[in-house]
């Protein structure tokens, strides 16, 4: 009888832990049913026999697997990953029909991960497109490199859409980019234009506006000898080591390497 009491206590603890966790409704239910069964029986033998009759006896592995799928489904739901959520729903139904489904169809985890990867890759691709834009926009010179990066990173977009403009209009993608609305528009317009025309605008950088100053410098270089010699004769300061601080509020410590 005391063993029965301990078993009940153990199952009560399982009910408590899995019941408190919003990700484990199936294990919570499984152990709750066991506890109810134990409470209604006078011996372990009786509980065991009854559990075999009502199917509870073999339901444990399925409950573990279902919670694993359910956790994925919940995360997908909370993030708006609709196809992942539907996939998980389908698997849950299959496990309900066959408790050992996850053990006989191990490829489902690969399929599930592939579906999730599509969403993550889209987020990463969108971020990389912004990086392409920022690097290009700084001087607007290396357009070939920028176009090649843009073409490559556009391929990463797939969920919820492979259309850059559609993604850019979504608040969750806007929230990824730390910039003013004006600059965000410049970013999206530039990428859309690159997609439609296959090219980017270029800035031809030239020192022409400074030509007079450059000539002035050349013509008067001899008058600068004193300043430059004074500068040149200063001792060269040593390079240094920069040590990170102990906390995010700290400051770097600089030490000369002598």
């Amino acid at each position, binding site marked *: 009888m005391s063993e029965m009491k301990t078993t009940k206590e153990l199952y009560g603890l399982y009910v408590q832990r899995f019941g408190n966790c919003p990700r484990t409704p199936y294990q919570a239910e499984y152990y709750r049913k066991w506890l109810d069964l134990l409470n209604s029986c006078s011996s372990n033998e009786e509980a065991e026999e009854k559990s075999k009759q009502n199917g509870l006896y073999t339901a444990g592995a399925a409950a573990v697997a279902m919670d694993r799928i359910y956790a994925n489904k919940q995360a997908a739901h909370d993030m708006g990953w609709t196809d992942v959520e539907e996939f998980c729903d389908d698997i849950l139904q299959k496990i309900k029909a066959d408790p050992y489904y996850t053990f006989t169809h191990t490829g489902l985890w690969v399929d599930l991960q592939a579906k999730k990867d599509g969403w993550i890759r889209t987020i990463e691709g969108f971020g990389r497109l912004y990086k392409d834009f920022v690097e290009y926009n700084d001087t607007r010179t290396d357009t070939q490199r920028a176009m090649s990066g843009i073409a490559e990173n556009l391929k990463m977009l797939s969920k919820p859409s492979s259309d850059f403009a559609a993604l850019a209009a979504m608040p969750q993608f806007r929230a990824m980019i730390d910039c003013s609305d004006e600059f965000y528009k410049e970013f999206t317009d530039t990428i859309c234009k690159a997609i439609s025309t296959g090219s980017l605008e270029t800035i031809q950088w030239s020192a022409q506006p400074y030509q007079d100053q450059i000539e002035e410098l050349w013509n008067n270089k001899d008058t600068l000898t004193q300043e430059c010699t004074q500068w040149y004769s200063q001792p060269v300061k040593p390079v240094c080591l920069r*040590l990170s601080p102990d906390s995010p509020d700290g400051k770097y410590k600089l*030490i000369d390497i002598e």
Partner: protein
Amino acid sequence: MDATIKMMIQGYIDGLDNMHTDDESIKKEVEDYKKELIAFGESQNDPATFFPKFQDSGLMGKYMDLATKITMAAQTKQQDSPSEQPKKHIATPSKWLEPFRTSYDYIKNLPIRERGLAVYRKLFEIGDRHTYITEFLTEVEKENLLWKITSEDTLGILNISLSGMDPLYKGLTYPVRKNIEAWENSICEADAYYLQDRLAEDVARNSQKLLQKELFVIQLGLHLMIYRGPKGKEGLMEMIATGHCPRIEFMGKASAMAVGKMQARRTLDIIKKVFGITFDDIIADEFLKYKLISTANVCGLSKAYVQSNANILDILADAVHNEIIPDISLIDAIRREPSVKFGRWRMPEDSEHAKAEAMARNHFQDLPYFKYEDQLKSASFHVGTGEGFDIKPLG
């Protein structure tokens, strides 16, 4: 199959065999389970990450389920025939813990696993105090120890990794801090699945966001270097000081100085437009300001860097405030007396990198990361649900 993993798998098989049962339906389940277990063992190649992956695969949960069923059946049988004292029918904590001891023995000499090892030791200590498996499991469950083997182990490794990172480098520390938060908040395997999925999405979004501002600052720094460094102003001053002034080279450096200034002014405008911040705001940001200059990580996960002269930022700030923003002429920029004495620009040489690394390692020697760096590098630690968390030093 790896020899150590084989030993661990055998431990679980022996554990079930030791919990002998006459129940035919359980016997079949045990046999099916053994096949799954062996297939799982074949798919693993790193004993150091075996247990967390075993737990994630659901096989640990199934092992618990089978063990409980066998125990219940055995208790029933014992109650039916107490005179038989069928000891072999009773699953003892000691037998049940055998596979855990195998896992423990494999990692017991790895201090980076200390948090996980402490949980194992607690488990064994509870096992030693109990004769009956249900009493033992009840105490284990009260402290959620089976889950803590994985969560504490992972948290230990993550915290050690964090100690090797630059705390100001949020783009780097963010994923690790969020990972720690997720593991601290998970109470079971399914919980970890949920949190890791959310984490993957959150990190994909926010890690990039944290890096966006520095991207602009790095570009500004490149323009300032062109303007102020050996390719521009400093190169011109050296030519004039040494009297070696071929016209083409002189004009090239003067043009670089001019274009560097134009590009720096444009980037400063963009930064103002995008983030609403000025050069002074960048200089006031302890982390961001060092993105203006070229630095190289010398040890840890961006824990220390080697860079040019210590007052280089003062020199750049002097140029921005007194030459670039007021847009003074090139000749005036060379003629003016800078507010900071600097001397010539110099980048660290290879020997100085080595010296810097030795100095940094000496400074950080007591941090866990540097104590256990070899152990951390020897395994790609599993820090999620089926995912590896590959911690790489940044260059």
